[in-house]
């Protein structure tokens, strides 16, 4: 009986403590905008500290970068700056760039300037960030290989890059599906392609069936196409994409394993 009372008392105390802590969450004076991101480089100019973050492994495919700029003198965030990026792979006999995306505006979003690159092959890449047309810094990244970028030649003899962005962590059931499509105009120019029509068919080759309610990806912006893919069980899935553009037809596929 005494033990029971003790247990009940302890339970009440625990309950009270947990209730208190839920009611009064500890307020951060200022949430760090880079919370949860991985820092990959840091560089300081006269009164500016540039810190570069990413949100995933540095791998071939679509890779996002987040640049945080801080005024060193008073440690205040810099919200307005013209940020752009360049990528370069030096293969000895030739050099080439890759598709990339610069921030949509000169204003930081949640304190960060968002850029992205599509690493079209693995190896050492040099990534340069230019800040306000005068300051720049370069960092070298060792990009490991994945199967998320497809390099295909269309029936118009042009070279296209189709990159799988979502799902990164596929789950059974409905998933967001996102690809981006770029075209190689030259070794340094990879513009986004915004006018392809995409038909997507997921299937399980070992089972010989597909899944219902998939939505074909349609263009959103900057060569990004959004749709829905439904995985009805775990296992090896093959997502086939038929991209058509004027007279050109591209066929490619991605293996996705749940």
């Amino acid at each position, binding site marked *: 009986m005494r033990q029971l009372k003790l247990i009940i008392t302890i339970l009440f105390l625990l309950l009270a403590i947990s209730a208190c802590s839920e009611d009064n969450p500890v307020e951060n004076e200022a949430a760090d905008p880079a919370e949860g991101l991985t820092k990959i480089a840091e560089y300081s100019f006269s009164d500016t500290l540039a810190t570069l973050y990413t949100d995933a492994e540095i791998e071939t495919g679509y890779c996002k970068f987040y640049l945080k700029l801080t005024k060193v003198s008073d440690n205040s965030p810099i919200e307005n700056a013209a940020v752009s990026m360049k990528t370069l792979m030096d293969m000895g006999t030739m050099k080439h760039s890759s598709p990339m995306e610069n921030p949509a505006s000169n204003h930081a979003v949640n304190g960060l300037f968002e850029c992205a690159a599509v690493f079209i092959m693995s190896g050492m890449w040099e990534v340069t960030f230019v800040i306000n047309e005068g300051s720049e810094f370069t960092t070298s990244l060792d990009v490991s290989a994945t199967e998320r970028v497809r390099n295909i030649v269309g029936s118009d003899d042009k070279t296209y890059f189709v990159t799988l962005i979502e799902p990164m962590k596929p789950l*059974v059931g409905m998933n967001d599906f996102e690809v981006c499509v770029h075209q190689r105009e030259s070794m340094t120019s990879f513009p986004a392609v915004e006018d392809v029509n995409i038909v997507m068919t997921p299937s399980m080759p070992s*089972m010989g069936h597909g899944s219902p309610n998939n939505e074909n990806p349609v263009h959103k912006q900057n060569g990004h196409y959004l749709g829905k893919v439904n995985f009805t069980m775990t296992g090896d899935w093959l997502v086939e994409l038929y991209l058509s553009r004027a007279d050109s037809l591209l066929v490619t596929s991605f293996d996705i394993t749940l």
Partner: protein
Amino acid sequence: MNTKIIYLVMISFLTVASITGQRQIRGEVTDAASGKGIPFANVLVLKENIGAACDENGMFALNLPSGTHNVKISAVGYQPETMLINGEIKYNGELKIRLKRKTIELSEDVVIYASEEPSKIEGWLNSTDDVMQKAEGVSLQRRGNYALEPSIRGMSAGQIGVVVDGMKIFSACVDRMDPVTAYVEVENLRKMEVSKGAFDLTQTSGVGGTINMVTQKANFSTPLSVQADMGYESVSQLRRFGGEVNFSNANLAVRGTYSMKNSSDYYAGNNAKIENSGFNKNNYTLNFTNKFNNNHSLEFAFIGDNAYDIGYPSLLMDATKALSQIYRLEHKWNIPFSALQYVNTKIYYNRIDHWMDDYKRDVTQRPVMTNMYMPMFGKTRTAGAMAEMLFLENAHNLKVILDLYRMSAFADMTMISVFDDVSDMYLINIGDAVLNNGAVTFDYNWIPSGKLRFRVNLRYDVSFRNIHNKDARRLLEGYWNEKIEEKKYGAFSFSGALEYEFLKGVAFRLALAQSERLPTHIENYGFYLYNYTDNYFYTGNPNLKTELSRQIELSTEFSSSSYRFSLSAFYNNVENYISGLLQSEEFKVFENISSAYLTGGELSGKIDLTSGLKFSAGLSYVYGYNREYDEPLPMIPPLEGNFALHFFGNGYRFSFGGRFAGEQNRIASATTSEDKTAAFIVFAFRGQIDLRDYAELKFGVENVADKYYNEHLAINNLPGRGRNFYAGISVLFDKLF
């Protein structure tokens, strides 16, 4: 406890030893509602051919020989009662027997247990499946040599209700390998109540009917009985062994049973061996009843059933293990001579687990799921409470039944390729579907005269259901492209019947019903469930409507002391019929199709030719039509029948008869892919001999001509069993010494 048992055993031996001669029993037969004596009621000691008639006040006196006897008490306009009476031990004083007025019987009993009239007992049959087949209008779906699944008047699965002592139990296997009838062995069955159609709504609102398996209870009439059974069946080299112990004193009775069966592969006719058709199972039960006084009793009952390595030759895989535990606690409160006659309350819980796989099969050669092993698991858990009370007042009686239960179900499968470079696949077939159901039923009888009877059933079911597994929810939401919310169903069902006896022994009955059947958890929430009859994968539909059935039945009965004929005809119109609708290649989804109807009837007759010689026969037919697809409904049995000649006398009983079915050419092709089935007839001989009063032999030959045949309801044309010689013996040890 131990000393109590020893004491009890000693007392019982002493009592048995002291029995000699006869004793006079006095008694009174009264109307259960009024308490008044029933004039000229009959009291008959079965097997002994002695009896007595009551006087004008319902009083009787009877000289009862030593031992325990089945005594049947009957009176015109009343439901007969059969009871076990042991003159020496319990009924030294006056025996009070209360009879209830005869109401309309909407269900048919197949009686197994020996306390009933011997010529009606079907306990000499080998299995629960054989017992089900005794009811006209019940057909069996065969997947192997184990646990056949019942179909009533062409309806099965979710359309019919199968309950054990009123308890809801749900099969765990999504491929219907484990029908609920598998869990009650014939030795443990007292009777099977079969109601066809939706006229009797007291158990479920199943549009097709209900089978209630009433189990054997602990027996108060003998201080101790110990019985052992063993038997053999040649067709599958089935070995069976079982035992039963029952002891009781004035307030307490306990019965425990154990049985085991081992079966190898069976042979169809013409000596065709059916591979992968063996099974092993054991079953144990415990029943514990305590009477607190004359009016209160508490019963605890447990059934455990374990089956291993069960072959399903007509399916892609075999069950490796099927475990079930069924618990029930029931309180009975009898209130004699009052408006409220009794209140029975029970709570119950059951858990069913089922594992199956295809590791023993050659998966590289099969047409579906080639090169893929697919072990599957399924489980259900059901907890429920029921309360039943009966109000009696002269010509009126009203039964009120409250029925609550909660069931949860889970099932999954892994697909393992024979090739190493293919990742394993995993799928949740039923992701923690939870159904919370409640129902209230009013069963009202009005008996204005000895010739005219009315019965009305009203039932309202509510159900709240949802799925709780996160991944399964994603699967279903992905499939339906919408959010799945908790689903609520309300379903109202009602039926009415009137029965009129034109003359003595000529009765006519009209019954009408409208019933709404709730979808099953599989029909709502199943995902990619493989159906062996049409080779499609089925997905549940969380938005299904209830299946609505309107039915009419006309029946008539002619009977005398030496014959009984009955004829029934029914018409059943079903709206929102739940059926698989083709979605894409290989896949179907459960939908409410606009309408279907079933019609047909049963005919049965029994004639006493001379004393000890009886002829019985039955015939049933169902015609099912799917209006949406303009084709026959699937899985409809053809014209079926049986006949038998019975010879019986003191201590022996023999029968020779046949079972036949016509060809079935009316088959579904749009909703499923069925084959036509040829007609067949098989003959059987059965015998039962009592060796003194301590042993009983049963033996027989089934499919005497070793005919190779398959029934229309056999999945993938699995043939029926070939010639089967069987023999069994049961010994009552307490009588032996």
